């Protein structure tokens, strides 16, 4: 039977089974590699969420803001309200979505450079405001976030358990974004991304979709941010700097922005391995990361996906071009 003949429900089922097996297998990796895989899943999800905003034509430099709000919400809920982990995750993601709605209605009226710079400022203001609040631990942040209870066979006292969680979130985000892109909404987004005014003249009320994309992106970023905060056990304002916003772009652009799932997966793999093995000398990380960005932009402007395409083009016709 041909793969192509399986209907879409079957495909989803197959993907879930494969992914489950993959996650299960990853669970037996050495600790350090599990750590890398966790970071990989985190940044892949953030990169994909960033791409959703890019699809409606805007270049956000503010993902750190939502990671920050997500992380702090989860920390506050669990530390101050003894809220169960699962509820904290969902409420945190919803909080991010709500903030995105309120802020988005204003800042998405801006386009291009204006949006770009204001999103950057937004993230920084979130960070500075949180750092100013004594309730949120001021510049120290909040720490001692309790380890969540076990869920069935998933133990959150081990890296393995977290790995399963982050892969689950990644899969959730990936499937959602993939579905969105293949559906009518994806087409509408691409029209708006190409030219909001043209889309408007076709009767698409673009503000609605721009805000929608921003809110969805914030929801998933917040979800990952919340889980990441609890995983690390602490949140602090120094963690959520501009650098985090940059990683979102880095992974998406390293991988290639043409593909909403595959690009970030590839880019994030490169980034996390690179980051993990980077010698830790203060300053060297920024320097190397900056150098890497400059290299990519000047020598590999379409990202890793373009390498894959160049590679595949060497094969004769009939070789399957589409993997995902």
């Amino acid at each position, binding site marked *: 039977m041909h793969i192509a003949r399986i209907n879409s429900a079957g495909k989803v089922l197959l993907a879930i089974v494969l992914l489950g097996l993959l996650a299960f297998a990853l669970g037996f990796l050495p600790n350090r590699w599990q750590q890398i895989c966790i970071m990989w899943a985190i940044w892949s999800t953030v990169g994909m969420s960033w791409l959703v905003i890019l699809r409606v034509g805007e270049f956000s*430099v503010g993902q750190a803001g939502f990671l920050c709000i997500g992380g702090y919400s989860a920390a506050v809920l669990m530390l101050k309200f003894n809220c169960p982990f699962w509820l904290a995750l969902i409420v945190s993601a919803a909080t991010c979505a709500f903030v995105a709605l309120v802020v988005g209605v204003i800042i998405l009226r801006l386009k*291009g450079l204006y949006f770009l*710079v204001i999103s950057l400022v937004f993230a*920084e*203001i979130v960070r*500075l405001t949180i750092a100013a609040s004594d309730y949120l631990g001021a510049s120290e942040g909040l720490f001692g976030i309790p380890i969540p209870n076990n869920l069935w066979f998933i133990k959150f006292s081990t890296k393995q358990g977290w790995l399963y969680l982050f892969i689950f979130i990644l899969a959730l985000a990936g499937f959602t974004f993939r579905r969105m892109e293949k559906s009518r909404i994806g087409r509408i987004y691409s029209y708006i991304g190409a030219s909001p005014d043209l889309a408007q003249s076709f009767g698409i009320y673009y503000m609605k979709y721009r805000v929608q994309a921003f809110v969805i992106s914030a929801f998933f970023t917040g979800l990952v941010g919340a889980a990441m905060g609890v995983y690390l056990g602490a949140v602090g304002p120094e963690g959520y700097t501009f650098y985090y916003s940059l990683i979102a772009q880095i992974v998406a652009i390293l991988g290639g922005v043409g593909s909403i799932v595959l690009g970030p997966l590839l880019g994030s793999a490169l980034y996390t391995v690179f980051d993990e093995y980077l010698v830790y000398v203060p*300053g060297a990380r920024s320097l190397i990361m*900056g150098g890497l960005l400059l290299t990519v932009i000047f020598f590999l402007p379409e990202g890793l996906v373009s390498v894959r395409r160049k590679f595949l083009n060497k094969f004769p016709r009939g070789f399957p071009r589409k993997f995902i």
Partner: protein
Amino acid sequence: MFDIFIFWITLSLNYVLLATGLTLTVSVMRVVNLAHGNFYMAGAYAFLVFSERAGLPYGLALLLSVLLVGALGMLVEAKLYRRLGGRIEPSIICMSGMLLVLEGLAVLLFGPDIRGLPAMLKGTTTIGGTVVSMERLSVAALALVVIAGLFCFLKYSRLGRSIRATAQDREAASLMGVNVNLISSLSMGIGTAMAVIAGIQITAVYHLSPYVGISALCTSILIITMGGMGSIVGAFIAAFIIGLSDSFGASFIGRYHHLLSFGTVMIILLFKPTGLLGTTVEAKGKG
């Protein structure tokens, strides 16, 4: 109270420098230089080296750091940015890369610790019976002189006029015989030099660390979006408004004053998405 007033004026004048520097590069290059704040930081470190390690007098150290980092800015425009053909996304990545490189270099060379910068003048004087620090006054005076100089340069000199022409319509300017590539480099150099002067002044009042660049960037972005990108008069007005929040706001409502600045900008953008005096940057001319 009078003290805060002087602080407001001093800070705002330097914000004008910082923000006009950015707005100049935005209007000619049509992309926001995200490394602007880090040029500001780099300039302050260069000044530290010239004045403390090399022991040069204040004025000479200032001049050398302005020239050095200004030249670096021109180089970045000519060798990196220009090759990207004015497309926004790659330019932003390129500038982010530059931002990280500068920050990393600063940490490697000077360490992550906070430092103080020497002041131009020391001591105090009295104005109308109130004691005022000479440092603040000199800082305000220098900023004022530089702003006035820049304004006259842009308004009355041949080169200044060609910068304005290039900002308004790059292609038409080239048809007048203006070497627009040179003008781009020059604007980036001047913009960076403005940031350096502001950096040396502001970090002397607050403090210097490799991480001050990002907050300087945010301040200048808030100012130019509020004033309208590309508008120097707009930047002037907005700098004083943001300065208000960072001086009076900071002393009356404490550390939440950032939220105040952001809120003010949000409210203005709600009513006028192009800022107080701005037209859309992208809409002006082609190429």
